[in-house]
């Protein structure tokens, strides 16, 4: 029973991270129709920024958000104007190729600058709480709480603000959004920038819990794919459900299936991805529907 409870708690904590990690990927896909294969690399850049602030100036990693979020927002805005804007109305294959190339460029540039040595980030929120025979790691609890807060704020932003509504409008009907006077290119730039900031912050959140290295991105991109298949595009409640599901599956497999090693998570994501795509191509919790094409 303790083993089960422990796995449950670990799964929920991992799932919370996955949920916040997937949002940038899923919203860019939902609003702009771009599948961003450089998602994991952007997350890695956020993690490196956090590591630099932590190592160089002794910053608490969770406080790095005040630098990471605006810096990644600016990076996203720039990328959108220079690159993504040009591929948005093109066939999906183009955006896949461009963002895939981008992922390789980012990973290798980071490797050139910082080498491939894995880096670790220290936090003052370390240690464990004990609850009977169950241990609760403090760092991961902070990550979970931060993830939930970020999702709640994003939800309010999308539902209540004028800018948030214009983003939802552009995702739901591009031509109608143009007709009511929404500047689509501006919405795309802002959406991409917000999502990259969000992804960078996810990198900040994960940095105290795992090694930071240039090639940490691809497995995360693949997991983002699997969770998006579960959750539907751009849905925050869906991302929470899908993230939790993947987190729980990973941890339960690691706990109860012996002798398969720690890399089983990625296998679990792929099994989920394949099963969902075969049985419910529209996604489990939302619609995996294509963004409407402009006329």
């Amino acid at each position: 029973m303790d083993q089960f409870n422990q796995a449950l708690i670990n799964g929920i904590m991992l799932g919370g991270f996955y949920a916040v990690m997937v949002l940038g990927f899923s919203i860019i896909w939902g609003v702009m129709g771009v599948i961003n294969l450089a998602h994991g690399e952007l997350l890695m850049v956020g993690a490196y920024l956090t590591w630099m602030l932590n190592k160089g100036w002794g910053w608490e990693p969770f406080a790095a958000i005040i630098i990471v979020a605006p810096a990644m927002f600016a990076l996203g805005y720039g990328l959108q104007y220079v690159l993504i804007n040009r591929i948005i109305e093109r066939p999906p294959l183009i955006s896949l190729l461009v963002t895939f190339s981008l992922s390789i460029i980012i990973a290798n540039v980071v490797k050139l600058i910082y080498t491939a040595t894995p880096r670790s980030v220290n936090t003052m929120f370390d240690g464990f709480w004990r609850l009977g025979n169950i241990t609760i790691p403090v760092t991961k609890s902070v990550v979970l709480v931060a993830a939930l807060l970020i999702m709640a704020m994003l939800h309010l932003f999308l539902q209540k603000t004028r800018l948030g509504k214009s983003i939802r409008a552009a995702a739901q009907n591009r031509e109608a959004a143009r007709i009511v006077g929404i500047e689509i290119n501006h919405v795309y730039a802002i959406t991409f920038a917000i999502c990259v900031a969000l992804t960078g912050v996810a990198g900040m959140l994960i940095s105290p819990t795992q090694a930071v290295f240039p090639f940490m991105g691809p497995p995360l991109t693949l997991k983002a794919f699997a969770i998006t298949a579960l959750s539907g595009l751009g849905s925050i409640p869906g991302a929470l459900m899908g993230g939790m599901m993947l987190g729980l599956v990973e941890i339960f497999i690691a706990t109860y299936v012996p002798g398969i090693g720690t890399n089983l998570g990625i296998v679990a994501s792929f099994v989920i991805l394949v099963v969902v795509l075969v049985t419910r191509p529209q996604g489990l919790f939302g619609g995996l529907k294509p963004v409407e094409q402009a006329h």
Partner: protein
Amino acid sequence: MNPTPLLEVHDIYAGYQVDLDILRGVSLDVQSGEIVCVIGPNGAGKSTVFKALYGFVPVREGSVLFGGQDITNIRPQEALKAGITIVPQLRSVFPQMTVRENLELGMYLEPNQTRVNERIRYIFELFPRLAERAKQNAGTMSGGEQRMLEIGRALMWEPQLMLMDEPSAGLAPLITKNIFESVRRLNEEIGLTVLMIEQNARQGLEISHRGYVLELGQNSYAGTGRELLANPEVRRAFLGG
């Protein structure tokens, strides 16, 4: 008739690609307070006229005047600000937003929230059905209700001219009749000026003051709704005899 029409389209040439004009010399005008209907076969360029008016397709020759001002090749946002609003042919509600949110977005460019709420109350008076459904997601309503919402949303911005691209598209005949009835009522009650394109030529012309027939990107006939309905050639070509 007023000396200066609200909208004047002078001999425009327009198309998606260079050297491939879909419109080759189209002219029409709309007086304030009129309903004007453009009919014609598929591929005649009816929808392109609207896209050209709204800045979605470039006009290469000719001019468009609105209230005496040159608005040729205006951008969509500017067209809206000038007082032209459009109800497109394809479903254009925001399906996962409520009726109220859809209406709010109709006045996306209005910074004053009080004004937006006033307009929503006004639209709800015009269409009590929308008021009943204020909190419902637009995508869950029937086709006719969605069309009504599209019209309501277009009216939010207090337009001087409403462009309607095939209001009957995808609707059952009875629903189409209701929609046309609403358009006529809006025209009579609030003086709404409408320029519409209609595949359903008979019903379109019946509620219109005047009409134009477009063929192969050019004007072929023009006249009052009644004249066109009575014209034997127009009848044979577009009204089924």
